[in-house]
């Protein structure tokens, strides 16, 4: 049946409702709509009824036009509802973008009262959201595996409250590949920066698996986003031609991104491109190849290194270093990271030959633009030799090489503790069973300081997923200026299956060094080694951290460490921190939120702190009457104890 006249009639009825029934008799389009309906009159009594009602509306004698109009609308709508289509024509296709999630993705039974607040907190605005989301993540981490929450988490990446966006980004990174479908669907964020973040996360989590996605989105995005997409193309060899084309045709930042991507790719064409480029702009090439681990990059870096260093070794020029030359050498030394082979080993040897001369580099090293943080006294003492040692260590962790491994041990024996960290990695990879004895020996002979020991072990941490100790290196790409976009570049299981090694280091630090000796760096590193259920190590560390925290006036940095070993005791910590100081309820509450321990112990501590407050041993910044403080005592104590 042709329903067009009915739809037209309905439109006219709505128009009458808007214009008023007093004008209906002058509405010629309404009249025409009725005329067009008339052929249907015989088809069904309902149509006949509609036509009759319509005609009544046009009759000057009709007294209840409004009622008839509404009856007419009711009847027409009822017909249209019964005639409404149901079936959808076309072939049904499977949903795109759905992947099998093997783990980490589920539907959790989360009550409305929590789920709604959580989604609102992740996607809405207003204060208090960060605290709610954070505490829920601590108490119910499984909720964050729910597919509805994951979707909201992706939306939170563009939250104007940067702290929340950053925290969620960390959780997504930790959540792994199961987030990728959500990231793909939530690709278009509220800001280009957040969209860029989404691509970076897909890039990190899925690598070449999402190559089609990068290619599909490439033509439709803005500059920043396009840059991130171009960089993500580096994972697939098939993109080499496209990237070479982009490196030639793109301009500005996107061109640079094509270079960064090509720096990570293998293949004869790419190698040729970089060799040609090197002939034109050698130092620019070295900068792009800083983090490259490709087979051809070592040769180019070695070539540049020799070009710069050889005149000095041959003593053809006077031994005066210009600032420009130092910059160049400095950049090339940086680029040694991740490079292997005999040519690179020779470079390290050559560095050592002129290390006296290059010692000056330290003046410039810390001033370089990518070291933005304030230099500590300890850092300012670190020289080129220290830096080469670190580069060697990082290279061995990323791509273990026999020759470089031997070189690390040789350098340690020849040049001392600057190469200790590299030597430890070499030993760990080559002959792990002797490492512990060897380290003990070095320590006994006082060849290495505690600082050197910290540096050697700082990249080791316990991985819950793999249930083993791993090396975890972090680095930032040169193009990322925000300092936050760190990427995990390697995750090699260290040969630390039995915990003898870790236990030794812990006992070495936790028992042999007194609590008065401050070495927060090592204490922090040890907290990264704690395995959830390892109660013995936890007990040792809890006592050790607790003693230290009790000794320190400013013990706030030790609270997370105590929490990491599930500490139950907290007596005296808050008293030590607040006694004799000026403070506020807010600060005390904040401290108690971080304070580990059972509710009972925290309550005890809170009572002591409150008594100090009442006795004037802790001064409040905002004067509050004693009466008020007395009145609020239990309220605050309970709040602090239960926080």
């Amino acid at each position, binding site marked *: 049946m042709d329903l067009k006249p009915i*739809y037209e009639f309905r439109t006219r009825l*709505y128009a*009458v*409702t*808007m*214009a*008023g029934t*007093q*004008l209906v008799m002058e509405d010629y389009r309404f009249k025409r709509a009725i005329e067009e309906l008339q052929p249907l009159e015989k088809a069904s009594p309902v149509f006949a009824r509609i036509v009759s009602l319509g005609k009544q509306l046009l009759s000057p004698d009709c007294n209840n036009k*409004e*009622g008839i109009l*509404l*009856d007419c*609308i*009711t009847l027409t*709508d*009822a017909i249209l*509802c*019964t005639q*409404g*289509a*149901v*079936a*959808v024509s*076309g*072939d*049904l*296709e*499977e949903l*795109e*973008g*759905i*992947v*099998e*999630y093997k783990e980490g*993705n*589920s*539907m959790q*039974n*989360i*009550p*409305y*009262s*929590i*789920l*709604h607040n959580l989604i609102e907190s992740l996607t809405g605005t207003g204060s208090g959201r960060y605290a709610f989301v954070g505490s829920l993540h601590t108490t119910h981490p499984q909720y964050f595996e729910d*597919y*509805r929450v*994951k*979707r909201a988490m992706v939306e939170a990446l563009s939250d104007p409250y940067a702290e929340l966006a950053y925290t969620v980004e960390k959780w997504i990174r930790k959540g792994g590949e199961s987030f990728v*479908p*959500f990231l793909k*669907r939530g690709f278009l964020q509220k800001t280009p920066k957040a969209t860029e973040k989404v691509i970076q996360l897909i890039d990190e989590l899925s690598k070449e698996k999402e190559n089609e996605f990068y290619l599909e989105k490439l033509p439709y995005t803005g500059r920043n986003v396009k840059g991130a997409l171009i960089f993500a193309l580096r994972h697939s060899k098939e993109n080499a031609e496209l990237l070479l084309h982009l490196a030639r045709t793109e301009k500005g930042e996107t061109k640079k991104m094509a270079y960064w991507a090509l720096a990570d790719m293998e293949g004869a064409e790419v190698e040729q491109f970089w060799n040609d480029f090197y002939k034109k702009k050698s130092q620019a090439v070295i900068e792009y190849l800083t983090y490259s681990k490709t087979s051809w990059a070592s040769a180019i870096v070695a070539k540049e290194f020799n070009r710069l260093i050889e005149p000095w070794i041959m003593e053809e020029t006077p031994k005066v270093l210009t600032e420009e030359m130092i910059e160049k050498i400095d950049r090339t030394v940086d680029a040694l990271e991740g490079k292997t082979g005999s040519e690179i080993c020779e470079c390290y040897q050559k560095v050592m030959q002129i290390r006296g001369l290059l010692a000056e580099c330290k003046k410039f090293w810390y001033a370089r633009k990518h070291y933005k943080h304030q230099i500590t006294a300890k850092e300012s003492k670190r020289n080129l030799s220290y830096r080469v040692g670190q580069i060697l260590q990082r290279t061995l962790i990323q791509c273990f090489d026999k020759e470089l491994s031997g070189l690390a041990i040789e350098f340690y024996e020849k040049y001392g503790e600057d190469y200790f960290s590299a030597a430890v990695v070499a030993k760990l990879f080559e002959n792990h069973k002797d490492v512990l004895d060897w380290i003990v020996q070095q320590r006994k002979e006082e060849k290495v300081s505690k600082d050197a020991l910290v540096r050697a072990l700082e990249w080791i941490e316990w991985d819950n997923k793999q249930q083993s100790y791993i090396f975890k290196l972090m680095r930032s790409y040169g193009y990322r200026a925000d300092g936050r976009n760190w990427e995990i570049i390697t995750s090699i299981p260290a040969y630390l299956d039995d915990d003898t090694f870790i236990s030794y280091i812990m006992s070495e630090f936790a028992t042999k060094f007194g609590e008065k000796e401050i070495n927060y760096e090592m204490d922090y590193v040890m907290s990264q080694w704690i395995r959830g259920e390892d109660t013995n190590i936890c007990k040792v560390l809890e006592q050790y951290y607790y003693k230290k925290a009790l000794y320190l006036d400013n013990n706030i940095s030790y609270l997370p460490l105590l929490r990491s070993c599930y500490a139950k005791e907290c007596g005296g910590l808050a008293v030590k921190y607040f006694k004799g100081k000026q403070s506020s309820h807010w600060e005390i509450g904040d401290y108690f939120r971080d304070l580990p321990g*059972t*509710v*009972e112990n925290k309550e005890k501590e809170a009572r002591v702190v409150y008594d100090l407050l009442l006795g004037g041993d802790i001064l409040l910044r905002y004067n509050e009457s004693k009466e008020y403080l007395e009145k609020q005592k*239990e309220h605050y*104590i*309970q709040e602090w104890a*239960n926080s």
Partner: protein
Amino acid sequence: MQQITEQQILALAPNSAAASNGKKISKSGGFVRLACSSDDTFYFGECKGSGSKNYSVSADFIEPLTPVFRCSCPSRQFPCKHSLGLLYEMLENKTFELCEIPSDILTKREKKQTKEAKKEETVSEEKQTTKKKTSKTAVTKKIKKQLEGLELTEKLMQDLLRAGLGTIGGTDVTMYRQLSKQLGDYYLSGPQRLLNQLILEIEVFQKDEKDYHYEVAIEILKKLWNLTKKSKEYLQKKLENDQVDTEANVLVEELGGIWKLSELEALGRCRENASLVQLDFWVTYHEVRKEYIDTGCWVDMDTGEVVMTYNYRPVKALNFVKAEDSIFDKLQIPKLVSYPGEGNLRVRWETSSFERITKEDMEKIRSFAIEDLNAEAKVIKNLLKNPLSPSMWIRLISYDMIGTVENEFVLRTKTGATILLKDSKELEPTVEHLSYLPNRELLKNQVLVGAFYYEPSQKRLQLQPLSIISKENIIRLLY
């Protein structure tokens, strides 16, 4: 030991914060003494609190479905966090020493029993004596008043349509608002709400000038007109027949009447030993009513019907009305009362107990699903075309596959019938969630809980997905 589940505790809690605080107290060892009576009806705990003395907390299970909680703390919340903490102690199967039931509790039990017996007596007396009295006087008077009000509403609609909706100005809106207020004097809160909704749509249109509001306004007018017409007929008939007893007619509630459980029971709308499983849950805010509506969508495990619960929480009384929450267990209900109406009937109950949902339950729920979409669509359209029917009908539908046709989500049944999956304007969006489901298998050979509705702009019957029932789980797309 009384069997208790976390769901039960959450359901008893006045809000989620109270439940989580109760849990904290229990976890942190807040209870210094636990005891229970030998007949397992009385539980007692001594709990550390902020005061100098410990709080005495007790739970009386003399009526297991409606336990009575008592606590010496000054909290106004009921049950307080300490009482909930005691329940968590029971959940954790902590050791309770044996104790005698205190004499004051026994006295209170007696008092309660006497009070209840008295109440029952009074109710039955009232039923016998005052019923007729009320019928003759107040009810007739009320019906006459309602008829007067309906005349007024009709006149108002006539005025509105004579001038045309498009010509209404700011002064008219104020006048209509005043007239709407008057309807309150005629026991017509239902039509009054519709009129307020109509005025609101016109006001919003005057601000944002979106034609959509007029479409909604006409829909409201249509409903109001039909309600007025049918109610007039119904009330006049009642007057003529001198019939003053309450009938199970949907118009009673539409006009603004509120059903008492006892009334519905008397009308035979009560079933014993029912069991319900919640399929989804959501909360909406009704701008005109100024109320939050907690909506539960359930399947009746005996009949397979999808039924609804509505908990109205006026904004002004948010602190005093307990909010409902999602429930993930099966409810055993001694007395289930249903409201008159069509489509998904509204149900209510006073007491219930919780049980875990078994695999057999899941199988049973799946067996209730409709297979023949085309035949069912006819029935659904017939219901939806009535302006006084609900605008959505939630059903269980078995499907062969959910996929896309030209980027639109479509459901296909085993017989090959298809229907468009689209979000309605009345609920939060859910269709997009189908792309994120935890398992691809959920898109094939499962059962969908969906709300059928007619979308005039698309000229088609559409379906908004609410949950997916797999063999093991209910995957909720809302809450």
